[in-house]
């Protein structure tokens, strides 16, 4: 959990207040995503944090796929999900939506 916690702290200055954000893992792990959703709520106050999973169960993609920002804990995906804003050893932050 610690790498994701650290990454979320690092992303805080890059995600504006009021923006929507989802924290996911690569590869997807609903248990870990449940914790990262809770961490994101605590560490990213003022943002609209959408859950990729709750109580260890994955949420339907329509709940989180329109999030403006994606915090990806773990490896970098083969296809970039948006504009890369931050890359660390723990993961990456992407801004999504129209270029």
């Amino acid at each position, binding site marked *: 959990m610690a790498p994701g916690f650290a990454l979320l702290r690092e992303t805080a200055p890059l995600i504006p207040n009021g923006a929507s954000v989802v924290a996911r893992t690569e590869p997807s792990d609903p248990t870990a995503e449940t914790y990262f959703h809770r*961490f994101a709520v605590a560490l990213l*106050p003022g943002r609209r944090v959408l859950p990729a999973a709750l109580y260890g169960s994955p949420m339907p993609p329509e709940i989180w796929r329109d999030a403006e920002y994606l915090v990806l804990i773990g490896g970098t995906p083969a296809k970039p999900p948006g504009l890369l804003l931050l890359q660390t050893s723990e993961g990456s932050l992407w801004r999504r939506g129209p270029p």
Partner: protein
Amino acid sequence: MSAGFLWLAAWLLLPIPGIPLLAHAAFAGLPRIGRAVLAGAVGAVLISFAMTLFALAGVAWSIGGVIVAALVLGLLLRVCVSRAPSGEAAPSGRLRVVGVLAAGVAGSAVLAALLATGVGATGSPDLVFFWGAKAQQFAALRTIDAAFLREPFLLYVNADYPPLVTNLYAFATIAAGRFPWLAATGTFPLILAALALALPGILRGATDRRRASAVSALVVAALAVIGIRAGIAGNGDMPLLFFETLSVAALLSTAVPQPARDWLAGSLLAGAATTKVEGLPFALAAAGLALFFPRGSSDSAPVRAPRLLTPTVLTLSAWFAYGASRHLFLGYSRQGQFLDLHLELLGTVFRSVAAALSSIAGGLPWLVPLLCLIAARPRLRAAALPLGTAGALVAFLLFTYLHRAEDPRLWIFWSAARVFSPVAALLGLAATGALAGRDEARAGRTRSPSPE
């Protein structure tokens, strides 16, 4: 100055609303440090109460406004004790070797808690999951955020949990400008230190100086070990233990004359009831037992009951009125269907609780106070208040664990050591009651005319 220091410094404002009560001459029998800590405890309850009333009325929080409102409540509390006689200081008596050793044990326990917290070994996940998350949200909005509590994706923040910890954290966050997570974990050693400073002086009204010091050290050391091993830093457990331990100590002690003692204990019980859900059964049990087993009080139970229970009724009523007015909750949420007990899980629950408690230093934080109590040869009547409260709390917790149909082992594993921690403190305090009972009996024999 960093936000963390400012956040912790804001806690120094808490005694202000408690000063009108604790400055009364009825509390003259307590040492100054004990009165200062108790003023902080009562002030914390009043500040949280004022913040809940502000939220209920739709008035935005400000540091000055909340303190002034809480001070007015403190002055009303002072009126309730205005006719109380002056308290008398306990005989000073020499501290001797036992007292010095006890002070060393308590100091070492607090230092261990401080060091363990400093290296990040005691942090509670619940601080991040809901105590801190709610507090910083409330601080940003300058009130309790009903929309945040209503959010369907945030059910895990437990909207109905009583408000004292999140209110006080929000209060400090408004003062500091942001919520400092590491500083919030510092509340564990700091509140434990406050307890260690206040408890011996309060218990001196229940027993002699050396015994008061020894029992205080026992309680503080037991709570330090549980807190470190169970990871309670930053969550509601240490504030709950603080209010619970001080309230029972105040009820055992005769250092403060009536009605001031009851109003003090009642305020502290309100602190417990508004800190965590299990604080309410604790407060009801302690108040009820104090009425049935009075110490140094000739007032009748119908006279005393309002003093002991009015603060809890008012503070919790404000919270539930807020929940009802925002369509959030009408009472505490339940674990499963009420009274739908799964007695087939009784053996699992007992074994799981025993395993959870023995995982904390082999269960020593509960076993050592129990052995001390047995060695003190308890007079049950003198120890009835802490022992009865412990029994009621244990019954409530087992009752709660039996309400879920699912396998409760994981739930008990991560909760039992924390929620059973007040039992360790109560066993220690019961040793004080037992000693006092023996002393009272001995004094009675000494005063009785010898038979011819």
